[in-house]
């Protein structure tokens, strides 16, 4: 058993879902995603016992491209994130009726497949293929099942697709260039390359464009809020919960080790960009009228901090970034789900139109509040562990980075609590708000349990990711 098993399960699952018909689709999808989760846990176990679970097969001879999947701690952590979030996301959608559900759930599984592949691929081109493949399902999910004015949605979605594709094509060019130098797309060979500073800079920038758009880092974020708002909530969860992490993961896995000189030389600039995202995102989030848009900008702020952490090139920065990725993945999925729960009852996402929910639904309020608090990195949630580590690493580089980045805990609290106040508190709304159903509650409970458990005991994850991050750091610091 090796890592390709997960991919196969998800791919088969995608097709099985499609052919199982509209009625069964959601359940089949859930089943397969759970199987994939189980499989990834088994693989994790195998990995920790030292078993070799990587795959490498020759695929195309000329140019030399391999079907290489390598599972190290970092990759497995991200795979686990994907495998854990997919069932949650699917399960959370049980309260909605989707027309043509078979295609919908099939696409979700397919997207999960592509994202898992991205996290596992250790051949540059294979990685690129998965990276692009992940784009197609979300495009259709947002386009077909999205909400809001159709024309606006089309514009937003097409912009999103073209924008992200634009970035990634430059990455492809960089990969081809690297291939010319290395004669192989395999990551080990790319790591070994000895590139001049100038080459590294260009390659770094090409990668940066792809990742900055995907993550997104300002000023490349303009697609984000609109797409989050227009996409169906499931799509938004996939995007914000997992897909953004593809960009961040790639920074650590590909960009930094391949072009370390450039990363070191221009470190400050990229950290500043990340931190600027933190501040800018937080400030813009303050005055958003749409709940999903607000969450989108909050996401912008958080990933900005993660990116800044990654670019510090310290073990702490990378480790904090990875932990924060996982934590943010869960919390953002939870928050968007909360928005969806409200939407199911109120049929609106306008913050102004909400309020007074707390009186009617104590359970929902509590869970939402915990998620809000996790999002503002209250200690004892996993987010705090990540954010603390990242901020600490920033302080190692320059104390001002930590101070500026740290404004996230103030501004974040400001906009999140303000949102919470207007959405949940206040006079009882004239509309009735039924408390969470069992299904909804389970999704919330799982997310909250994960966040709190790792908040107090992050060691398993730290232990999992540290060795591979150290390896990457060695590559970065090789000269």
């Amino acid at each position, binding site marked *: 058993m090796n890592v390709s098993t997960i991919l196969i399960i998800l791919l088969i699952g995608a097709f099985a879902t499609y052919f199982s018909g509209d009625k069964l689709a959601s359940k089949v999808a859930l089943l397969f995603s759970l199987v994939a989760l189980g499989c990834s846990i088994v693989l994790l176990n195998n990995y920790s016992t030292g078993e070799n679970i990587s795959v490498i097969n020759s695929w195309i001879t000329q140019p030399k491209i391999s079907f290489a999947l390598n599972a190290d701690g970092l990759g497995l952590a991200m795979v686990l994130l994907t495998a854990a979030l997919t069932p949650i996301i699917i399960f959370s959608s049980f309260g909605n009726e989707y027309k043509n559900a078979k295609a919908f759930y099939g696409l979700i599984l397919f997207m999960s497949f592509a994202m898992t592949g991205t996290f596992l691929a250790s051949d540059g081109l294979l990685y690129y293929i998965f990276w692009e493949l992940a784009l197609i399902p979300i495009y259709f999910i947002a386009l077909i099942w999205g909400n809001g004015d159709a024309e606006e949605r089309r514009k937003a979605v097409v912009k999103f697709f073209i924008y992200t594709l634009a970035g990634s094509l430059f990455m492809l060019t960089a990969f081809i260039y690297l291939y010319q130098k290395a004669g192989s797309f395999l990551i080990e060979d790319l790591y070994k390359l000895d590139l001049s500073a100038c080459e590294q800079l260009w390659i770094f920038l090409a990668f940066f464009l792809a990742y900055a758009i995907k993550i997104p880092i300002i000023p490349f974020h*303009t697609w984000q809020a609109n797409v989050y708002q227009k996409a169906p909530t499931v799509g938004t969860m996939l995007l914000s919960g997992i897909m953004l992490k593809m960009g961040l993961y790639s920074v650590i896995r590909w960009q930094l080790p391949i072009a370390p000189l450039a990363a070191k030389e221009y470190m400050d600039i990229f950290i500043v960009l990340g931190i600027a995202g933190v501040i800018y995102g937080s400030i813009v989030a303050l005055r958003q009228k749409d709940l999903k848009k607000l969450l989108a900008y909050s996401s912008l702020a958080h990933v900005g901090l993660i990116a800044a952490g990654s670019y510090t090139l310290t073990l702490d920065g990378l480790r904090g970034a990875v932990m924060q990725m996982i934590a943010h993945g869960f919390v953002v999925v939870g928050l968007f789900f909360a928005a969806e729960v409200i939407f199911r009852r109120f049929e609106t996402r306008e913050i102004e139109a909400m309020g007074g929910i707390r009186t009617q639904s104590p359970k929902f309020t509590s869970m939402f509040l915990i998620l809000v608090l996790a999002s503002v990195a209250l200690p004892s949630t996993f987010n705090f562990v990540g954010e603390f580590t990242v901020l600490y690493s920033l302080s190692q580089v320059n104390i001002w980075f*930590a101070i500026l980045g740290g404004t996230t805990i103030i501004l974040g609290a400001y906009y999140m609590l303000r949102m919470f106040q207007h959405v949940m508190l206040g006079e009882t709304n004239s509309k009735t708000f039924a408390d969470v159903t069992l299904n909804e509650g389970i999704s919330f409970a799982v997310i909250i349990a994960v966040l709190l458990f790792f908040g107090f005991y992050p060691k398993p994850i730290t232990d999992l990711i540290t060795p591979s991050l150290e390896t990457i750091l060695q590559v970065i610091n090789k000269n």
Partner: protein
Amino acid sequence: MDTNLALILVLTPLLGFLVNVFFGKSLGKTVSGAIGTVAVAISFVVSLLLFNQITSTGKGIEVTLFDWIQISNLKINLGFLLDQLSVLWLLFVTGIGSLIHLYSISYMHDDENMHKFFAYLNLFVFFMITLVIGSNLLVLFIGWEGVGLCSYLLIGFWHKNQDYNDAAKKAFIMNRIGDLGLLIGMFIIGTMFSTLDYATLKTVIAGATNLNLPLLSLAALCLFIGACGKSAQIPLYTWLPDAMAGPTPVSALIHAATMVTAGIFMVTRLNFVFDLATDVQTVIAVIGAITSLVAATIGLVQNDIKKVLAYSTVSQLGLMFLALGFGAYEVAVFHVITHAFFKACLFLGSGSVIHGLHGEQDMRNMGGLRKAMPITFWTMLISSLAISGVPFFSGFFSKDEILLTAFHHSIPLYVVGSVASIMTAFYMFRLMFLTFFKEFRGTEEQKHHLHESGALITIPLIILAILATFGGLISLPGNSWLNEYLAPLFAKATEGEHHLGTTEYTLMGVAVLGGLLGILIAYIKYFKQDNVPEADENITGLSKVLYNKYYVDEVYDAVFVAPVNSLSKFFRDYIETGLSALVFGLGKIANEIAFQGKKLQTGSIGLYLFVFVLGLCAIVSYIFLAQ
């Protein structure tokens, strides 16, 4: 064994919280209240056990549970440190906590969400214990933010009122500003010493040569900013008066006795750091003094009974920081304890009054309650005497020591502190006179229902009044049990150990006289002359400025909040749309070129061939002629 004790200590309130959260509603109000109270009481008992152990062995207990966060040069455990300081704190946190829980059973009995109230209170106690007994700064930080969260929840307990919610939010955010400072301080300390553990830190600093003192001072300053946020010091104090929106027991427990003293706890905990940063100590002293004066002046004219107490709290906290600034940690701690007694008592008393008047908080509508609520009156009177520094009540000793310390270090600050003390006496007795003397000024309806509160309310009041009276005994001048008890904590020889000489007695006399003067003025103004404060719109002149708290909230709003909000609007409306337009612009340009290009494709064969020939000529001449 120690581990188990520590875990019982911490987890019982958490258990109480969980039980109340999940089953509170079905258990009924009384049961859920009882569970909450018992949970805290158990912690109190454990604290007593621990106290006993510590006093007998004289050594702290360290408990390490597991590795928590790993950072390259730091390894942070989730562990507890139970030493003299933390156990002392535990005692009054859990002790007063138990009393207030008891009190709340009755006080909150009419509220439909009583189980939640107890849940939050228990959660608060849990976090407070964590804060106190954490073995390193980061565990402290869990508690630190956790109590902030509970404060947020409890201030906004009546969540239908958006003003209360605003107050809660404000408290949380101002605290967070301080928290950032604390975090930065931690970062610097972590970087410098590769540890956040108190014990290790102390050893490392003690053994260190060539310390980077400026950096350490910066760290201390950042930590102090954290303390400012939590302990409501200038410039981050404005949240505390607003926090009175919460139920009165909350004000008593969180915003008077325990949480707000966390800053003092932290500074005391890290005394070895602050001792090295003398500049920062000066800053602390100055800020403490100014805060105490400013808050006292505002307190002079407030009409809301709880607001008066709130500003009084800020002022007293300022005094404590004054002491901290001079390195007199045990003096500050002493005042923390006595303050906890009398201020909790005052708050609970005011709660009793408010309870009796069905929610009326404006002193202009009170008066003459002495007869209707004798126990409340007497307990509050005792506490007022204590806070005013009338001799032999607990406040007399602690406040006196602070002023004494100040006098030894800085005459101007001593003067400021003394003035604040005189004002304290004045406004406390203003409160007493307006509330309990003369005739009742409220409605007939209220008058009809006036009654003394029940036993569950009065018993805590009585106990606290007793403590407020005799609390001073733990650190009598010249023979201080407290100083000895705390001595192992401090690096330097204790400062508070003064020889009682002429100067000291003179100062003591001056302080007593000052206190009495304040009481006298209040007596003349509000008893003899029968003044009642003016209605809001008639307040003019300096009082208006004071009544409106120097307009600090407005200034903050104009300087910080409004710009951020308008910046947000600006970003949202212009930058975002601009950036978006930029991206769409590229598409638009392409489309425009396409639109123009379509015109070129006229459909005319002649044109097509013409371009063909031109292209042919261009290529041929470029290849063959352009050399």
